[in-house]
């Protein structure tokens, strides 16, 4: 069976597809979140060095991963929108930005809470923290540029340029711990080597990462649906939709 992908590139058909997918991802997100938090707080053993305080990892690491990953995805869709002039991809980029900014903020916030008991300070001007802060600024810049431009097509394209320029920051954040020998600890999980932590901790963290994924997908689809409705409000299918749901 072949799926006609182009069909779903049209905002009108994507709108209904997203509507069907949202409940599915929402339920998954809730289940995974509950499971992840349970493993994280009740099953995972206490860290011999960091004590109970390390448990913030279950929120901190997924948020930090998502913050970087979502930026790349956002820049990717914005770039596709710029190159091929596809409306839906640009709408997607716009929909991703607030969730990405939220995760960046959570990563910084939980990082501060982790830093206080571990390092004795809320904040250090360390390479990884600083570049994560820059990432937050980039998200805010992207959103405010789009908000300032009234014409949505121009806003999409202008946002795409600034998003693509900002992509250089992502590898800097990711490798900052290796490049600069700083206070932030190195990555504990890597695809190449066996993880340097207990299995229960790893499972809890991965479940939380999945939960963050599902949450992001559900929320982004929801936001994309709103953007579609807003931008396509002049078309006939939206008018019909209004008739049927009234």
């Amino acid at each position, binding site marked *: 069976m072949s799926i006609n992908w182009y069909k779903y590139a049209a905002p009108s058909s994507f709108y209904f597809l997203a509507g069907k997918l949202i409940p599915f991802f929402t339920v998954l997100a809730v289940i995974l979140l509950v499971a992840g938090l349970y493993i994280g707080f009740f099953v995972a053993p206490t860290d011999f060095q960091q004590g109970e305080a390390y448990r913030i990892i279950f929120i901190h690491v997924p948020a930090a991963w998502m913050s970087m990953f979502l930026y790349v995805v956002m820049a990717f869709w914005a770039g596709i929108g710029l190159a091929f002039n596809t409306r839906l991809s640009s709408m997607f980029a716009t929909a991703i930005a607030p969730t990405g900014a939220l995760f960046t903020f959570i990563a910084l916030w939980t990082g501060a809470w982790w830093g206080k008991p571990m390092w004795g300070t809320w904040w250090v001007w360390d390479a990884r923290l600083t570049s994560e802060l820059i990432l937050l600024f980039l998200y805010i810049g992207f959103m405010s*540029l789009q908000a300032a431009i009234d014409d949505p*097509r121009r806003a999409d394209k*202008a946002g795409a*340029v600034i998003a693509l320029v900002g992509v250089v920051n992502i590898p800097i954040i990711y490798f900052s711990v290796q490049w600069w020998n700083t206070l932030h600890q190195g990555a504990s999980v890597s695809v190449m080597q066996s993880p340097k932590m207990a299995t229960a901790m790893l499972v809890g963290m991965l479940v939380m990462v999945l939960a963050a994924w599902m949450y992001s997908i559900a929320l982004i689809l929801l936001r994309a649906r709103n953007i579609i409705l807003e931008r396509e409000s002049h078309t006939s299918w939206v008018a019909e939709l209004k008739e049927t749901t009234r």
Partner: protein
Amino acid sequence: MLAMRRQADVLITLFFFIIVVSLFPLGVGPEMNILRAIAPGVLWVAALLASMLSLGRLFSIDYMDGTLEQLLISPSPLFLLVLGKMVSHWLVSGLPLVLMAPILGIQYDLSMEALSVLTLSLLIGTPILSLIGAIGAALTLGVRGGGVLVSLLVLPLYIPILIFGAGAVEASAAGLGYDAHFSLLGAFLLVSLVFAPWAAAASLRISME
């Protein structure tokens, strides 16, 4: 070179730089040890802000009198024209700061070696500011609240240059090698020289649609 006819603009940027740099000793207090420690950062941040403030004029006058449309339809490639704009922006807003920096550095009691490193780092660094800043200026052309928006877009991208520019001076003051900082600044300059005119040209086309 038309910008030379509006000498007031050049002087405003320069005096802004001088005033901001002079404010810090008044705010922090005239303790020479502290001043010597913060001098590289202060001079670099002031250069960043001065360079950013003059970005608004980079395209806006051409945009208002229609010259920009003529540039867009001209037969020569747009990125070359944009590169010309960037170079002239640096000549009128970056170069005066570079020339002025050693004199202000003396006020902060920097050593001779630190002064030369500071000047050299600004010489490599300020063109990058003009190159990256032009992208932001082109994107916010004719947008309401454009001036504040430019700072929001451009300042995060300036941060690495600030870190390595000021870092070079601090490293030399601490007696460490500063070659690595200069190599990185040089790399930033080359990369932005290749990509920035192209990105700014694309942004201009988007803004002029």
